[in-house]
């Protein structure tokens, strides 16, 4: 058998040099006259080990990482094609602690094989969920998804099955499945990873959603900052169409479902579902008032399921293994698993899929291994630019929708950014307002104008001008934004701002006092 060498094609791995490593391996093979096949797999998500190269040996896969192009010669010298020892040797990939500790349901296949091999997808349980779904009544599919307890992984946490039921129960000549792949939150990359590493699971999830609700057309709206994901999804859709997974007869059933990949144009607010729908329709990405719910009047005014990538990609395993299997993981009303994305100033950054319930401290300290800089952790922002900053004092908070809400935070799309003690929380609060001002769609006054005023007032605080009075003004402004904005952009920008003020008051003291304190 020809040896197989796996080098990830995930854009995170490429950003760390995976393409260069692949080229170096190819050149070395040629020079040594050795025959081997280089497979470009997805990433397993341990970015601190990327580029992670794997070799298939008689005793299973052996991983090496992080591999630099300059390591390649010595890897060959050390006999890495047979799993030989080397300073980058990591052993069996599924025994690497960061990966071994995970519960991979949604990401079960991600990073193992060539993302565009439908055969490889099927060999690891792919399409079983869709096969079950086509043999069921739509209402039973919806029931199974509802019973699994799956909630919207985009951030809002709305029960997926209930959304689907509304679309199923609404009459319409045309219904749509829209996948929100406008993953704009900093610290989040789960959508990107699954689209680049296991695109068929998203296609399968969307096809199931179509069958469950009577929708025959799907759109994936991917942000333009993700060119690799766009390319992979386009290729995967073409392959799925050719194989009869998509088309007039899904897997030979009487159900029709097809889909298109659409690319965003750099507007963060289009991650909000109603502005995404406007954008898909070719309009300005302005937020719509609800009601009407998109489930009743969504894309082009038709009943529309709009779900996040991870919500849809979690459906196939629910339809394969059953609602009870999925529901068994998790805590409280947060059922199943969640791909936590550990990012920023952290030693072991990457994607960690696990059942709900780990505490923030376990995630940051035990799994993340503390900061990359080696300095103490000062703050962790959970849930992207609209999420709250948590201090160490709140590290006992369990990762759960309700527990985070109780502490004036949100888990959002489950991205967490770690900051060390050099972070200036006044600067972070100001950035939250500035970002809101840049990205506001302009519809609601508190968001459009409040964010600009917020920047100005925080600048006054930074300059030591009537700090106390101006902080009271910011608090009041945040209140107005929170309750006076239609969507989460204006409504949630107060989270990072107020959590910074509440948990890190020392950073908001007038400048002279701050100098004196240091």
């Amino acid at each position, binding site marked *: 058998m020809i040896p197989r060498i796996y080098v990830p094609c995930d*854009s995170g791995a490429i950003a760390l040099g995976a393409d260069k490593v692949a080229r170096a391996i190819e050149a070395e093979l040629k020079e040594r006259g050795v025959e081997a096949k280089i497979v470009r797999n997805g990433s397993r998500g341990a970015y601190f080990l990327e580029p992670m190269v794997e070799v298939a040996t008689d005793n299973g896969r052996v991983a090496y990482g992080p591999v630099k192009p300059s390591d390649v010669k010595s890897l060959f010298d050390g006999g890495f094609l047979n799993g030989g020892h080397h300073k980058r040797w990591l052993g069996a990939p599924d025994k690497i602690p960061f990966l071994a500790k995970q519960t991979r349901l949604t990401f079960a296949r991600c990073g193992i094989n060539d993302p565009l091999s439908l055969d490889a997808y099927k060999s690891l349980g792919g399409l079983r969920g869709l096969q079950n779904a086509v043999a069921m009544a739509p209402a039973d599919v919806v029931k199974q998804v509802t019973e699994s307890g799956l909630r919207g992984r985009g951030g809002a946490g709305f029960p997926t099955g209930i959304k689907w039921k509304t679309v199923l129960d609404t009459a319409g000549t045309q219904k749509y499945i829209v996948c929100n792949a406008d993953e704009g939150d900093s610290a*989040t990359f789960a959508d990107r990873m699954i689209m680049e590493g296991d695109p068929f699971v998203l296609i399968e999830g969307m096809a199931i959603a179509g069958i469950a609700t009577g929708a025959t057309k799907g759109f994936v709206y991917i942000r333009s*900052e993700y060119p690799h994901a766009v390319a992979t999804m386009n290729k995967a859709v073409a392959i799925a169409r050719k194989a009869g997974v998509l088309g007039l007869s899904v897997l030979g059933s009487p159900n029709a479902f097809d889909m298109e990949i*659409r690319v965003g*144009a*750099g507007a963060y607010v289009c991650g909000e579902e109603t502005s995404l729908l406007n954008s898909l329709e*070719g309009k300005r990405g302005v937020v719509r008032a609800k009601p009407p719910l998109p489930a009743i009047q969504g894309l082009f005014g038709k009943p529309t399921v709009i779900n996040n990538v991870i919500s849809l990609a979690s459906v196939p395993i629910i339809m394969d293994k059953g609602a009870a299997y999925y529901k068994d993981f998790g805590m409280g009303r947060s059922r199943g698993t969640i791909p936590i994305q550990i*990012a*920023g100033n952290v030693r072991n950054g990457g994607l960690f899929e696990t059942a709900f319930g780990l505490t923030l401290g376990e995630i940051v300290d035990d799994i993340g291994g503390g900061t990359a800089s080696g300095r103490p952790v000062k703050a962790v922002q959970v849930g992207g630019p609209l999420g709250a900053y948590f201090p160490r004092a709140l590290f006992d908070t369990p990762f759960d929708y309700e527990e985070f809400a109780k502490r004036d935070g949100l888990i959002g799309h489950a991205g967490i950014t770690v900051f060390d003690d050099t972070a200036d929380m006044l600067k972070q609060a100001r950035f939250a307002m500035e970002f809101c001002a840049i990205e506001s769609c302009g519809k609601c006054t508190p968001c459009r104008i409040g964010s600009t005023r917020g920047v100005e007032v925080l600048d006054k605080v930074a300059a030591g001008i009537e700090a106390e009075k101006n902080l009271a003004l910011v608090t009041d402004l945040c209140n107005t934004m929170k309750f006076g904005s239609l969507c989460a952009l204006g409504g949630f920008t107060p989270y990072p701002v107020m959590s910074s003020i509440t948990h890190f008051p020392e950073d908001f003291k007038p400048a002279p006092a701050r100098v004196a304190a240091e």
Partner: protein
Amino acid sequence: MTMQAASTEIASRTAAIIDEMKGLEGPLLPILHSIQEEFGHVPKDALPVIADGLNLSRAEVHGVVTFYHDFRARPAGRHVLKLCQAEACQSMGSDAVAAKVKRLLGIDFHETTRDGSVTLEPVYCLGLCACSPSAMLDGEVIGRLDDEKIEEIVAEVRS
């Protein structure tokens, strides 16, 4: 005369793109992306053609083009360098990276060097948040920027 010719040329190439794509559901964004790919920006002269082709007002088309950060009114430099400035990259010193790149290139964000070699832009998240600070050069992703990589990038765009 040459202005006239350029304008006719833009109109005909734009019309061809519209013809090809107007059957799509919600065709405006895909059309704008194709136009930007064709011309490197969305030329003003293309807007009335789009409005006409899709039965929209010019104001509506203008409104859409100007809403999205991606669409350029003017061509960019030969290279486009985007530096991520979002929180995960901030936590790893993206401020200092941006300051250094700006100093080396002698331009600020949203500017193009005088020789037209490079346009510098901020970007709010490339999804490379476990490989911060990150950047994108002409569509190629670069993670864990350090002084050495920054100097390499600057040398590349200048050459």
